């Protein structure tokens, strides 16, 4: 294995000392609570999302255990319905997106050669909100008040009349709360990628993972408002008696579905897109070449982001809308396969033209291709209205989206865990353990979900807490349940592998894989300031390119060391031309404080303590006002004439 060392830093020892002084943090509780370091925040995102994944996974195991036999009474319907709702909601909102945002947080500044995100405090705020919103939603489960109407929460079932209690208030308020974090994170990614790239990193040298994250962030910006509005209207209908979804008073139940899926379909790509970016990031190191057709892949990413907004009605093919609109949305849903096909074949070409190094990350990428391609086939089938009407809301669709989401997101995430673990923790993982984990996860996934295609076709609807034995679905269900335990063991082995690496793994060199991007040009784990010298980028694969590497070593210039303060560089949006240095904020209590008052606000809204909510809203405004309050500076520096 290539173990190219990081270049000898071009910064002097004295400069390194000053950098450490400006960026370093001594470990303490205070430092832990106030940090704005994107690497720490990224790690927290990963761990927290991992915990929510475990909770959602255990919910699924309980469900599979219930479904192992027909007419089982292990879980009551009320329990089962909360579990399946929390499983879906948490996997989508509290695991997939935050996990990928965690990788984005850790990696984007490293990939583009910056010292932090554009808005470090906002980044910290985003994490705390994510954590609190996740706890807010999960805390309802022990009280039997968890959301219980499915992750897409169709009205009128979710109205006050049909679902009294806090269940759906937890859902709507929890998602609104979480939405703040997702929006803030997305804006942060966009601005970071636009302005903080190392000098020389013009748009055609931006790593594909960063393209994917930015495209994702743009989708969030345009898609999430629809969900937020939907949830706000649901909450108003439930709590304050408005009639948006009440057909008896001029409302319309399909309005919920339209808005939900205008968000919901882009959300599929919001989840899958960064994961596809991971695949493009992992492949070069293990095929010893860049991804074939960089421009085509970028085009595919952009095309998917745009087309994904024109396909939402394919989730409503059974609601009886006009046939003409079905023809249109069917066509759009069919066409969106093409950019995905381009990416798949670009990766295949990369593998065929490269030289494969078969390590665990590559295994997961291969597992991804096999699984995601199958999910893509069934996806195309769902684009055909007539076929969709037959298999939607059956176990066939459950099989389909688990192939897409486990294949398209979880496998790449697992690849990413193994690939970047040395960078994140500074330790190597155990290869044998990793291989066992891969085979168990791969086998478990297919044993669990493949049969669902079959019993879906055989007529078993989704979201049933039990089923009779006469239709003969029981054998297949038992197979699925056995598979789910295999999958769980495999995932447990992943955790064991990570813990083992942290405890016992041998120290990782800066560049264990011979990777092509900038994160491999600095220490494992990176210092608090990421790069002793900010690079001057000369190509798409800076770590494979002598001049880019040299710019951080012998070719270092003082204006890329920036040891005089906590600063990083701003560059131009398109060409990555150097513009100016910018001062970065240091650790602060404000993010945690602001997230706490927001938590108070949403909790007060949940329990209808409206005066408390009003006070909390004022506190939010006050905290933001203090946060952004301009520091006092002498007139000369400000440039004041009168």
């Amino acid at each position, binding site marked *: 294995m290539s173990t190219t060392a990081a270049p000898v830093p071009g910064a002097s020892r004295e400069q390194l000392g000053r950098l450490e002084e400006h960026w370093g943090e001594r470990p303490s509780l205070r430092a832990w609570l106030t940090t704005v370091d994107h690497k720490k925040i990224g790690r927290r995102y990963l761990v927290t999302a991992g915990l929510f994944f475990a909770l959602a996974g255990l919910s699924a195991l309980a469900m599979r255990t219930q479904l192992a036999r027909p007419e089982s009474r292990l879980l009551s319907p009320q329990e089962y319905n909360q579990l399946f709702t929390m499983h879906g909601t948490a996997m989508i909102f509290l695991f997939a997106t935050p996990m990928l945002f965690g990788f984005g947080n850790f990696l984007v500044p490293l990939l583009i050669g910056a010292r932090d995100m554009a*808005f470090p405090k906002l980044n910290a705020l985003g994490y705390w909100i994510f954590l609190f919103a996740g706890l807010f939603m999960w805390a309802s489960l022990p009280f039997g008040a968890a959301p219980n109407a499915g992750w897409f929460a169709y009205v009128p079932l979710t109205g006050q009349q049909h679902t009294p209690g806090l269940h759906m208030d937890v859902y709507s308020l929890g998602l609104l709360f979480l939405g703040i974090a997702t929006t803030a994170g997305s804006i942060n990614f966009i601005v970071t990628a636009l302005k903080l790239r190392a000098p020389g990193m013009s748009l055609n040298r931006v790593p594909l993972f960063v393209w994917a994250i930015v495209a994702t962030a743009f989708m969030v910006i345009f898609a999430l408002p629809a969900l937020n509005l939907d949830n706000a*209207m649901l909450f108003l209908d439930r709590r304050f008696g408005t*009639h948006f979804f009440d057909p008896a008073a001029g409302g319309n139940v399909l*309005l919920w579905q339209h808005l939900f899926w205008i968000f919901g379909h882009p959300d599929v790509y919001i989840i899958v897109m960064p994961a596809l970016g991971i695949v493009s990031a992992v492949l070069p190191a293990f095929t010893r070449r860049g991804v074939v057709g960089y421009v085509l892949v970028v085009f595919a990413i952009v095309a998917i982001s745009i087309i994904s907004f024109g396909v939402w009605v394919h989730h409503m093919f059974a609601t009886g809308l006009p046939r003409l609109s079905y023809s249109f949305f069917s066509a759009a849903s069919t066409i969106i396969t093409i950019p995905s096909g381009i990416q798949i074949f670009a990766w295949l070409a990369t593998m065929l033209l490269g030289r494969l190094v078969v390590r665990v990350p590559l295994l997961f990428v291969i597992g991804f291709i096999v699984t995601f391609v199958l999910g893509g086939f069934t996806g195309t089938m769902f684009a055909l209205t007539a076929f969709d009407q037959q298999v939607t809301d059956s176990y066939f669709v459950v099989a389909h989206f688990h192939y897409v989401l486990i294949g398209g997101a979880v496998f790449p995430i697992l690849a990413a865990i193994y690939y970047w673990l040395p960078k994140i923790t500074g330790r190597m993982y155990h290869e044998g353990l990793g291989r066992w984990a891969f085979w168990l996860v791969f086998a478990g996934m297919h044993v669990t979900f493949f049969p669902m295609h079959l019993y879906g076709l055989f007529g078993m609807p989704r979201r049933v807490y039990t089923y009779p034995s006469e239709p003969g679905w029981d054998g297949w269900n038992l197979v699925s349940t056995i598979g789910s335990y295999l999958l769980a063991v495999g995932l447990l082995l992943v955790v064991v592998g990570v813990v083992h690496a942290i405890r016992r793994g041998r120290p990782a060199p800066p560049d264990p894989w011979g990777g092509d991007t900038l994160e491999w040009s600095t220490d494992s784990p990176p210092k608090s300031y990421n790069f002793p010298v900010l690079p001057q980028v000369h190509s798409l694969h800076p770590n494979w390119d002598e001049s880019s590497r040299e710019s951080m070593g012998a070719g270092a210039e003082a204006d890329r060391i920036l040891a005089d303060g906590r600063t990083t560089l701003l560059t131009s949006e398109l060409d990555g031309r150097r513009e100016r240095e910018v001062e970065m904020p240091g650790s602060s209590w404000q993010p945690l404080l602001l997230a706490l008052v927001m938590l108070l606000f949403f909790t007060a809204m949940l329990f209808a303590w409206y005066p408390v909510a009003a006070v909390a809203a004022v506190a939010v405004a006050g905290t933001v006002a203090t946060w952004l309050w301009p520091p006092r500076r002498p007139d000369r520096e400000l440039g*004041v004439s009168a």
Partner: protein
Amino acid sequence: MSGGVRAATGTAALTTELPVGRSTGWWGMVMFVVTEATLFACLLGSYFYLRFQSGDQWPPPGIAPPTLLKPLVMTAVLLPSSLPVIWAEHGIRKGQRWRLRAGLTATLLLGLTFLALQASEYAEKLHEFTLTTNAYGSLFYVITGFHGLHVLVGLTMIGWLLAASLRGGSFGAHRHDRVRNAAIYWHFVDLVWAAILFTIYLSPRL
């Protein structure tokens, strides 16, 4: 105060605030406004969706079509309120603090007038229908109320800028990012009102 002199003449002071390229704050605010605009687009889209899915009569029976006089006055108050902000921003770019203070005060007054007018509009409408009368009532109050909330947030930003500029040591020719970002938000709030005027008040007459 040699430290102050150094801070004022060091490379950081001389280079960081020269207007080279867009700042991160500018991009952040633009992206925020984009996502907010999408939210309003969804909200107004919902209005039209419910309108065209419901019966022939809109507003529904029992509710008169909205009268135009007051909303037009509100428009006449709110839309021009962007002008003093622009004038103030141009002033502070030249280092003229008095223009900043005067412009912000003017906008603040116009914004408050708008909110007062909206309150009187509500006082009138609440006799006719409320949030819970039917979907039309829900749409009317939620759309205008949500916009009113944005005006309130915008005014808080303007007031906050004014407070900071009155304190002194906040803004100048080299440091006016916050003024520019708040101005972007205020222009956005103004433009949204135009869309709401069209949707709520004009479109039922079409």
